[in-house]
């Protein structure tokens, strides 16, 4: 299946970024939430302590007693008015009602002035002067008036007199039953975080509470900011990745263009200049392939050239003889010319067959399958075919086999190989000569040997005689070969990884040896077992 590297990289890199970001975002969300909770808890505690100090001082001064319950309506009313006016920007409200001095109230900084004035107008006591700076300091320290200024409700409980004071947002019942420390409570489906503190005398309990939503709001704000940043960043990241990947893939595009522009026959190596290191091996491999292709093409070109060369001469002979036969008035000359034509046609037929064999070896898939084959069986077939020809020349043909084992070869191909070698031997062996064929199983290979009593080939010409269309000078006129036989033999031997060795036979002629490698030992053993089984059955 094909896919775009650019798309793949884009998708994977983006997904990976998203995943990593998601995990990081989740972790930082968790951490932030914890930190926010801690921060708020601390402030809750601080506020409670501030109030406690305040209450303590009031208690010390004796200005705080337990009889304010009958007046509760009044401050509420006032505070309601105030709260209505300032709800918009005052989320934190304190409500403090000392019995003697009436309403003592504080809200956030921005609202201190009107409230102050209000208070000043109502009450011009020294008490105010003492209180406000403390509040100011404390409240500034806890950074009130900020966006996230907390909605804090508080209650002042007297153990003997019940609720003494409360903020507007606080209910009239106790936030918590605890006297000290943190606790949580659920009121009207709202979770409140409560901090309780009891004053030193143990008479008064201050309960400062804060709604969970405030905290959630802050953490939500932080996380939504994170998400927003990412949503804005994602397309930008995508674009950047797309661009960078495109830039990095440029060499591939250049390579593709360079390859597309090529003619099939143009196989000069590609340049590795300006290529990234990762692509150099690829281009080197392509260049290697080009070299091999070039060699194969050259091979083919030479073969065609050789073949046409080899066909032209006999054709010229045929044409010339035909001319002679047509023109001559001498019946004897005509007869000879016609017999020459027949001879030439036979020779060319053989040559064309050899050429076809040669090209079929290259292209035909039927020659690719290899299986266990008894080479000696193929030899017997070939000898049976060629025997009449040998008999004509009174050539003695002998076949001997020793330790013959099957080899993994392509039967038809090996038959062609054997036929060519034996045919060659018969062709070049003079009448009444000998052709000896032996098959010997050796440790690592099966040896096929064809020896003749012909003129042989001088050792210095062994290599040349394997070339296509080479015909040995000394024998060229006596035997009508095509010069293709040994090329075919060599090619087939090559296909089977078999070695082809030329030498001098015991009769002084040519000795052709082909060494077929045996299958690996394991296969060898199994075959021997099968064979012994077969032999046992036969003998039993």
């Amino acid at each position, binding site marked *: 299946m094909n896919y775009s590297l650019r798309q793949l990289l884009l998708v994977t890199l983006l997904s990976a970024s998203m995943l990593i970001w998601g995990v990081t975002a989740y972790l930082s969300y968790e951490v932030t939430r914890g930190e926010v909770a801690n921060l708020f808890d601390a402030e809750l505690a601080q506020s409670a302590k501030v109030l406690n100090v305040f209450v303590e001082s009031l208690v010390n001064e004796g200005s705080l007693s337990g009889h304010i319950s009958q007046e509760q309506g009044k401050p509420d009313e006032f505070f309601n008015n105030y709260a209505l006016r300032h709800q918009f920007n005052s989320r934190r409200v304190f409500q403090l009602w000392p019995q003697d001095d009436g309403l003592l109230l504080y809200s956030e900084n921005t609202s201190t002035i009107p409230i102050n004035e209000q208070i000043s107008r109502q009450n011009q006591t020294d008490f105010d002067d003492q209180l406000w700076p403390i509040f100011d300091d404390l409240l500034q320290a806890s950074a009130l008036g900020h966006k996230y200024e907390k909605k804090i409700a508080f209650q002042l409980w007297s153990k003997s007199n019940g609720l003494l004071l409360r903020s507007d947002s606080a209910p009239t019942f106790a936030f918590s039953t605890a006297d000290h420390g943190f606790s949580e409570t659920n009121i009207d489906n709202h979770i409140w975080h409560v901090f309780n503190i009891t004053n030193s005398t143990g008479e008064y309990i201050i309960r400062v509470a804060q709604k969970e939503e405030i905290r959630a709001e802050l953490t939500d704000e932080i996380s939504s900011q994170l998400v927003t940043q990412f949503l804005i960043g994602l397309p930008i990241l995508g674009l950047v990745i797309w661009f960078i990947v495109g830039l990095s893939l440029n060499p591939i595009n250049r390579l593709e263009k360079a390859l597309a522009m090529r003619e099939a026959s143009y196989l000069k190596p590609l340049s590795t200049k300006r290529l990234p290191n990762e692509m150099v091996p690829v281009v080197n491999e392509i260049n290697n392939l080009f070299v091999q292709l070039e060699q194969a093409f050259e091979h083919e070109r030479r073969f065609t050239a050789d073949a046409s*060369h080899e066909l032209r*001469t*006999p054709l*010229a002979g*045929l044409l010339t003889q035909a001319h002679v036969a047509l023109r001559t008035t001498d019946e004897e000359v005509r007869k000879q010319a016609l017999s*020459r034509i027949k001879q030439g046609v036979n020779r060319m037929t053989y040559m064309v067959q050899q050429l076809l064999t040669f090209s079929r070896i290259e292209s035909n898939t039927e020659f690719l399958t290899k299986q266990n084959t008894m080479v000696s069986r193929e030899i017997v077939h070939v000898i049976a075919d060629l025997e009449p020809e040998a008999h004509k020349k009174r050539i003695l043909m002998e076949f001997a086999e020793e330790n013959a084992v099957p080899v993994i070869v392509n039967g038809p191909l090996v038959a062609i190989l054997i036929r060519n070698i034996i045919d060659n031997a018969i062709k070049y062996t003079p009448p009444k000569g000998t052709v000896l064929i032996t098959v010997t199983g050796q440790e690592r290979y099966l040896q096929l040997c064809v020896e003749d009593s012909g003129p042989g080939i001088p050792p210095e010409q062994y290599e040349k005689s394997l070339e296509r269309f080479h015909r040995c000078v000394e024998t*060229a*006129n006596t035997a009508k070969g095509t010069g293709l036989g040994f090329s075919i033999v060599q090619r087939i031997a090559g296909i089977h990884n078999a070695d082809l060795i030329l030498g001098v036979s015991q009769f002084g002629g040519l000795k052709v040896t082909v060494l077929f490698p045996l299958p690996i030992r394991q296969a060898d053993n199994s075959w021997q077992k099968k064979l012994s089984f077969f032999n046992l059955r036969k003998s039993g």
Partner: protein
Amino acid sequence: MRLLLVEDDEILGDGLVAGLKMEGYAVDWLTNGKLADEALKLNAYELIVLDLNLPDMDGMSILKALRARKDETPVMVLTAKDTISDRVLGLDSGADDFVIKPFELDEVCARLRALARRSEGRSAPTIEYKGIILDPASRLVSYNDEKVELSQKEFEILSFLMGNIGKVVSRSRLEESLYSWDSDVESNTVEVHIHYLRKKLDSTLIRTVRGVGYIIDNDDDL
């Protein structure tokens, strides 16, 4: 006209020998390059037909050796290679003509006639002298616009002498041009043919140079 054919293919060589003999050439045929080289050193030929792909010594080497010996005998090269570079190489090596296999025998013969003509310094296809018109292509001779019937050997001798007007041609040279190795030469046949030629044509045409040979005198030089 004596011609050396060097061709290692048996059927082609055999066909060429038969075809060229029909054209009146005395053909010697060799299949081995080295032997051909030796034969060219020892014998005089009017024409050489040379294959390039030969055992022992290739045609190009024979040609180079021939030209190195200052032998100007016209050489026609037979080749199976049809690339231009091969032909250029051959012509540069001293070949006078190139024929690519397979070829028509007629074409080879026509080209050989042209080669012979050029080597005799003529450009016209026919030789005309003192009312005798000799056409090597059709092998016809007329004298004073009348057709003259000549035997093959008579024609050969006449065309050889007419190709060398004003030069003495030795008897042995004439014999060589008439007979290839495989034919028997009778010692007086040249005289017999000359005799008939004198009878059929102008009796004063061919002059005997005693002990040397024969000449057709060039009257223009007188």
